[in-house]
């Protein structure tokens, strides 16, 4: 039994704003969320990359102590966007707690800030008593499914829990597996997304692999530069996003505002190297996604590319897009606005795509001034376009060789 699945609510906290109006404004006006890397009194002074996609505005959290006590910063992002999505959805408390709603939500490795505190306590401890500073809740704050279960606890959600922790495909998998759970009748609705907090360990990892941007440390807004000749690597970022998926007939019957339909999802693995992008693996993912959606590739008119702005990654992705979709679809690299929000990038880029569909515009890839000739076979967007979007693809690829594609259709 395959059912249609629609997205009926969306919310995000991103380096370019919190909420729909602010995010749309940033996309339309070309506002970047890249700022100088914040001092963390641990790694920031040793990292060559001095830029970061930063959430530097206050978020008005209103969580009671009974919830706060198991929440690290990534769960604050997660619970806030979940709260906004549930409020937007108009779902009743009876439905939310009925078992018919599940959660698919993750972060790349729990809460690195909490883990850092645990290690600091451990290495600075002088005697046995000092170890007591490791709190009883530190595991609950830092475990890999901490975002998902803080959401279930806060809203009394009793359906299935899926918590992918697959680096940059974490939240695209959340949406994909949520889509499959609803499509095949295992849940009526799924709250899906991902969140990651400010963290310099992730920056250090990419920095040591020479994958981080360093050439624009004094001009943060000029990086990252997907598909551009001067691109010199990714910019790590923080944020969170959530969408609500539900079965189409159920959504229609209750008069929900349908933002888009998920028409396909695919996920595979390169089956080899854990770091390098793989043309065959990525091409296969895109083909599987198109087959799942039962459409012709020509029907896709917008692609949100993973486009981290690494030297090789962008070229491989461009080749895969060209092979599967040709030169027709408009291409945008949304990380040019906010950097790489890690576990949140799939859902945030999906939400930006939904906003573009709803408003009828396509945002340009920022900092794309001179297109790398090896990526030039695509239809890159370099200035704001007013244009309706019918069908879009959101592509994400992760360390570990995991690839995903989501396909979304505009029903309005």
């Amino acid at each position, binding site marked *: 039994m395959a059912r249609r699945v629609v997205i009926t609510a969306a919310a995000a906290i991103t380096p370019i704003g919190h909420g729909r109006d602010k995010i749309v404004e940033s996309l339309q006006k070309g506002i970047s969320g890249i700022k100088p890397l914040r001092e963390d009194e641990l790694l920031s002074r040793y990292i060559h990359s001095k830029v970061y996609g930063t959430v530097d505005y206050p978020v008005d959290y209103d969580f009671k*102590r*009974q919830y706060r*006590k*198991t929440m690290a910063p990534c769960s604050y992002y997660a619970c806030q966007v979940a709260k906004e999505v549930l409020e937007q959805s108009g779902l009743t408390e009876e439905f939310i707690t009925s078992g018919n709603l599940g959660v698919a939500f993750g972060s790349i490795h729990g809460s690195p800030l909490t883990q850092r505190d645990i290690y600091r306590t451990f290495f600075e401890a002088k005697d046995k008593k000092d170890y*007591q500073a490791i*709190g*009883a*809740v530190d595991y*609950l704050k830092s475990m890999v499914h901490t975002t998902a279960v803080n959401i279930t606890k806060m809203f009394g959600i009793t359906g299935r829990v899926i918590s992918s922790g697959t680096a940059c495909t974490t939240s695209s998998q959340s949406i994909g597996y949520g889509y499959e759970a609803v499509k095949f009748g295992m849940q009526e609705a799924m709250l899906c997304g991902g969140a990651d907090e400010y963290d310099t360990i992730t920056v250090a990892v990419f920095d040591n692999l020479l994958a981080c941007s360093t050439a624009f440390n004094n001009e943060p807004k000029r990086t990252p530069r997907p598909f551009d000749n001067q691109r010199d690597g990714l910019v790590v970022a923080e944020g969170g996003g959530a969408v609500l998926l539900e079965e189409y007939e159920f959504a229609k019957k209750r008069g929900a505002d349908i933002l888009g339909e998920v028409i396909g999802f695919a996920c595979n693995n390169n089956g080899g190297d854990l770091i390098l992008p793989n043309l065959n693996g990525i091409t296969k993912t895109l083909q599987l996604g198109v087959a799942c959606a039962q459409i012709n590739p020509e029907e896709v008119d917008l692609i949100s590319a993973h486009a981290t702005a690494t030297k090789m990654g962008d070229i491989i992705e461009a080749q895969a897009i060209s092979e599967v979709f040709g030169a027709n679809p408009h291409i945008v690299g949304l990380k040019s606005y906010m950097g790489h929000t890690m576990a949140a990038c799939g859902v945030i880029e999906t939400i930006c795509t939904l906003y573009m569909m709803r408003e009828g515009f396509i945002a340009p890839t920022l900092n794309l001034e001179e297109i790398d000739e090896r990526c030039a076979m695509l239809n890159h967007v370099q200035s704001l376009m007013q244009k309706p979007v019918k069908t879009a693809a959101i592509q994400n690829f992760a360390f570990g060789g995991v690839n995903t594609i989501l396909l979304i259709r505009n029903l309005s």
Partner: protein
Amino acid sequence: MTRQEIEQEVKSIFLREFEIENPQMDKDLRETYGFDSIDAIELLLEIERFLGSELTQEEKKQAMDIRTVNQICDYIEKMAKVRGLAKEA
């Protein structure tokens, strides 16, 4: 330490750690204040800090039946006595 000092410390722990101001002494903590298993573990750590000594596994097990603030004070009083810390008011 006297019973009064123990009660004062417990109230201060409740305010500082659990944001519960002036808890009622004989109310069920879970039902009235949403006090849960995570809070119970944190409370045992606070009691160890207050007593200035570790609780044994056996002593910690004795705390599992505690339901009210009064019972927490009884428990601390008992642990203080074992350690020669208790004093009549």
